[in-house]
């Protein structure tokens, strides 16, 4: 599976701060840039670019 890159968990006072910062439009967009990149959202392909599901092996 394509997974987000490892990043430190956000909790405690940092989570409180992030939740307040992301309520402000341009700060939200800045944080979102990193979140999108970490989650691989810009790299999502269109299905046509992917190989069809295929059999890897037979019993």
């Amino acid at each position: 599976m394509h997974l987000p890159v490892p990043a430190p968990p956000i909790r405690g006072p940092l989570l409180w701060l992030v939740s307040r910062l992301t309520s402000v439009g341009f700060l939200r967009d800045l944080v979102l840039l990193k979140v999108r990149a970490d989650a691989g959202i810009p790299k999502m392909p269109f299905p046509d670019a992917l190989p069809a599901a295929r059999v890897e092996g037979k019993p």
Partner: protein
Amino acid sequence: MSGWPLGVAALAQAFRAGKDDPVRALARARAAAEKGKGDHAILWKVEEAEREAEASRARHADGAPLSPLDGVPLVVKDCIDVAGYPTTNGTRFLMAKVAKDAALVARLRAAGAVIFAKTNMHEFGCQPTGVNPHYGTPVNPWDPDRIPGGSSAGSAVSVASGIAPAAIGTDAGGSVRMPATLCGLVGFKPTFGAVPTDGCAALTRDLDHAGPLAWTVEDATLLFEAMAEVKVDRGLRPARVALLTDFLEGADPAVVETVRAAARDAFGALPEERTPCCAWAAAVEFVVVGSDASALMADLLRDHAGEMGGDARTILQLGGGLKAADRAKADALRAGMRRELDALCERYDLLIGPAAGTLAPPLHPTARRTGELDTHTMARLAAVTFPTNLTGHPSISVPCVPAGSAAQPVGLQLIAARGADAMALAGARAVEALRGPRRPPRWWGP
């Protein structure tokens, strides 16, 4: 496993035989809930339950129960409407009492089930961990220092710790199957639309499902039959089964080993299939849930942001910033995922993978107090449950750790064609026959 002391089928059998009755069963459930109240599984006690149990006892005495569920005490997640009680959705501010039962609650009550409590959950159901800083995090009965899984955390903990024979949860990304897996239960997400979600708080426009969490596949089947108003064919035998290797990639070695062994024991040597579109499920789910949830909850965010947990608030705010181009690409990939699984389901009765990519992750002490945002761990855990929310295929998680082992729970996931809920349940029965449920160390039941 009909001998399991608190299971639905076992209770129904005892009621029919006159060895037990709904009033005594409810009293035991209430006593267990009292013993386990420090585990934060239950949010609301439903007061009408005693009266309903007495009416059920009278029907059994007359030899006229309404269904196998008549008199069985159940709990439902607190995003599902029960008339006369709030539907908090895991928040501290949605406290208005609702006037009408959710459609699935009405169906369960029409079948005679006794809804006796509403259960704790991850706020808005927006993460699969079950951590709730407002009401406390339900305690995983296998290990209190690990997350219980979510978002239907209180439902899973209620069943796994012996309070309720079974529970109802909702699932927009694994929220029934994930806590069921991490607490060692069966969790069933039926085909999209098979169980009505009217009266269930929505996280998304079209990923939300409702389903049972139970000790056994038969218990889950009985609850599904009542909620979907269908009769499940119990004579099905899956013949063509494949293993989805993308679902195993990135998973914990212990999970991979346990799932492969259980699949081999239940179905023999299996062909292995790749799912290139489903492999992107984590990114697609983030976009779809983020954009849908932020739109659906815009008013709540405007009026109550300061009362929300930090993780829920951040997810809703960030979701509002996602671009239309992200959503268009996610929707295209989602359509590809559906075609991919549809094509595989034409060739196979069942597709198999893990029901969670990791064992239950540790619960950090600070996260207990404040909540937590950990996208990497969340995706490692739930990337394997996201695909069938995005495609609508039925998916069931069944415990697959050998009986007698003290290992943390691992779930095997079985996926069937859309509408083939009975086949998914049949496959789970085959696994259960070899593995079966295990009672956790933390236990409040009789």
